[in-house]
């Protein structure tokens, strides 16, 4: 090795400078993304964690309070309520919307009449603006003369205050979000299904596998990367819901529909308590990081990528 290097110093130097240029080039190419990532992700995370340990006095000066805000949070019933609500909300929306998306995608992937129309119909909820969606569903849920209660009326049932009752408000939001998300996730499944080689299915049918067996043992496993991607998005969305709450319930009645991010918004902007909002944000951050770790550390390894 040394001999070789000694005998041909010039190519080695060239190779080294080439490597150096490659590195510079790579860093330059990465720079825009890195700058954005640091400016809008890493720096705010650090600033938020720092801010959660301080409180800002009325005169603008900052006072270090250590973990005081975290202790206050542990004693804050609304925070716990929001957290529990968020758990049920995630559990209510994620599996159902993914399952529905898969069923719809398989359904509209087949050759049939009106396929384009059906695909469009499934996708429509996704392209509607959030606020419009909230207003449409507000009409469905209006007690007594809303669409839902008119339907109940046909069966001789009385009106129900859907969004005004703590026992039904969360269910109402979950149904609405499933309606909105399933069509969106369907698009990813549809794309994935069309990427699958038809050879596999043909081979399976020659072997005499039933349609259900083919789906269960061949199609579904091959869709796992998509499922994971969709699941991650669904989790993020379940923590991201604010718009609908603002329009439909304001987190009420009595916090029955308050989710974590809505509470953070309320604390930060309505109460102007940015340090407590930072504390709550750190919790949200930890939850999402935990989920990300689960994805990269565990799920990713168990999935077959083509």
């Amino acid at each position, binding site marked *: 090795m040394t001999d070789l290097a000694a005998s041909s110093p010039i190519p080695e130097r060239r190779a080294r400078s080439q490597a150096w240029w490659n590195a510079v080039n790579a860093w330059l190419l990465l720079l825009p993304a890195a700058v954005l990532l640091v400016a*809008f992700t890493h720096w705010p995370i650090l600033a938020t964690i720092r801010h959660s340990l301080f409180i800002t006095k*009325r*005169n603008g000066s900052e006072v270090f309070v250590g973990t005081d805000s975290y202790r206050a949070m542990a004693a804050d*019933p*609304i925070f716990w309520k929001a957290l529990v609500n968020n758990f049920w909300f995630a559990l209510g929306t994620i599996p159902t919307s993914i399952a529905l998306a898969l069923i719809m995608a398989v359904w509209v992937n087949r050759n049939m009449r009106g396929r384009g129309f059906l695909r469009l119909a499934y996708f429509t909820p996704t392209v509607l603006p959030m606020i419009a969606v909230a207003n449409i569903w507000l009409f469905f849920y*209006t*007690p*007594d*003369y809303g669409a839902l209660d008119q339907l109940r*009326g046909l069966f*001789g*049932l*009385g*009106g129900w*205050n859907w*969004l*005004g*009752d*703590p026992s039904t408000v969360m269910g109402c939001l979950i149904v609405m979000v499933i309606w909105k998300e399933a069509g969106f996730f369907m698009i990813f499944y549809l794309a994935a299904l069309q990427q699958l080689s038809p050879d596999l299915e043909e081979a399976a049918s020659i072997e005499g596998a039933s349609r259900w067996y083919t789906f269960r043992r061949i199609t579904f496993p091959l869709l796992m990367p998509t499922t994971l991607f969709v699941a991650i998005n669904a989790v993020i969305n379940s923590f991201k819901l604010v718009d609908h709450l603002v329009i439909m319930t*304001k987190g*009420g*009645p*009595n*916090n*029955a529909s308050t989710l974590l991010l809505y509470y953070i*918004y*309320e604390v930060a*902007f*309505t*109460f*102007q308590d940015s340090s407590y909002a930072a504390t709550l944000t750190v919790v949200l951050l930890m939850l999402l990081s935990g989920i990300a770790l689960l994805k990269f550390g565990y799920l990713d390894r168990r999935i077959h990528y083509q």
Partner: protein
Amino acid sequence: MLMAAALAVLSMGARPAAAVDLTMYYPVAVGGPVTKIIDDMVSRFEKDNPDVKVTAVYAGNYTDTMTKAMTAMKGGQPPQLSVLLSTDVFTLMDENAIVPFDDLVGDKAWFKEFYPAFMANGQVDGKTWSIPFQRSTIVLYWNKDAFKEAGLDPEKAPASWDEMVEMSKKLVKKEGANTTRWGVEIPTTGYGYWMLQALAIENGQKMMNEAGTEVYLTAPKTVGALDYWVDLSRKHNVMPTGSIDWATLRTDFLEGKTAMMWHTTGNLTAVKDAAKFQFGVAMLPAKERRGSPTGGGSFYIFKNASAEQQKAAVKFIQWMTAPERAAEWSMKTGYVAVSPAAYKTKAMEDYAKGFPQATVARDQLEHAVPELSVHENGRIYKFVNDAVQAAVTGSQKPQEALAAAQAQSDRVLRAAK
């Protein structure tokens, strides 16, 4: 989200111009074409005063507008003036956001032109921090046609709590399991604290001290007020159970879904324009006494505005609250005109002759009490609103719900003392 807020604020930055530029945020909490009315008034002001340019920004309901103004201020680009809840005064003072009018106006006799009940909310520490604009009291709207149909005197609204229950029972109409008309509805979302305060006043109980450092939520008469409210739905079955939405209640009344509603007088003109039936407006019924909190929005001037802008803002506010304009505003919306002189204008006198409902809220002023206003207002309102909702939805007894709200309020207000 912070970024988006900051961008929104930046994009509204100052425009270079020879005239003084003013940005004003204002809320809409009632029905009707309020933004159009405001735009029209602003453009007439600009015609009268070419040296001042006003950008009026509709910013949502009261809470949203306050949120927007405070966020803009923290982003370094506050509006120069805003219409905000009269009760936001402590919060705005605590945040060092506003300047008192005393230092800006030459002649303080101006303050005396307004109804004292409306000025009371804005006067703290011997200074005047706000000028009343879209002010209100809660009034009772009743559907005369429904009263007739139920065999009640259509010209007589309930005068006491008991009477309201009795009349309501007669007004409830059922079709099978479905209630097609309720007796009365009191809104619980958004401004639940305001309605509870009305009931507490009528029951003979104040809800806060003048310094804005204490609330009295567990006083037996406050609890009694919430008990009565909850009983309307759960014991007497004359009001729907669950929460009742502030914004859709007007529609419920107009659709005949409820025979009576408690709502701000600010909705009067919207109801008048849309009602397909005869309706009346009355003072709220009494228990120990009559009473309603005052409510609604006042003008504030922000500290960061330049001296020139502050002067222009005062000029604008004086123009907007002058008797003729106050009368016009009252006729177009239903809000109480802010000065007695407004009711003496010819336009207003003629209007009230044909539509006597227009003066009920003003007449109620003599029984009125300043609206609940304390330090950390946003938080306290949430605690009280949550308690009201917990009680009307049946998840907690009024006593428990208010005790929880009191404990939370005490903790928050400790810092303000």
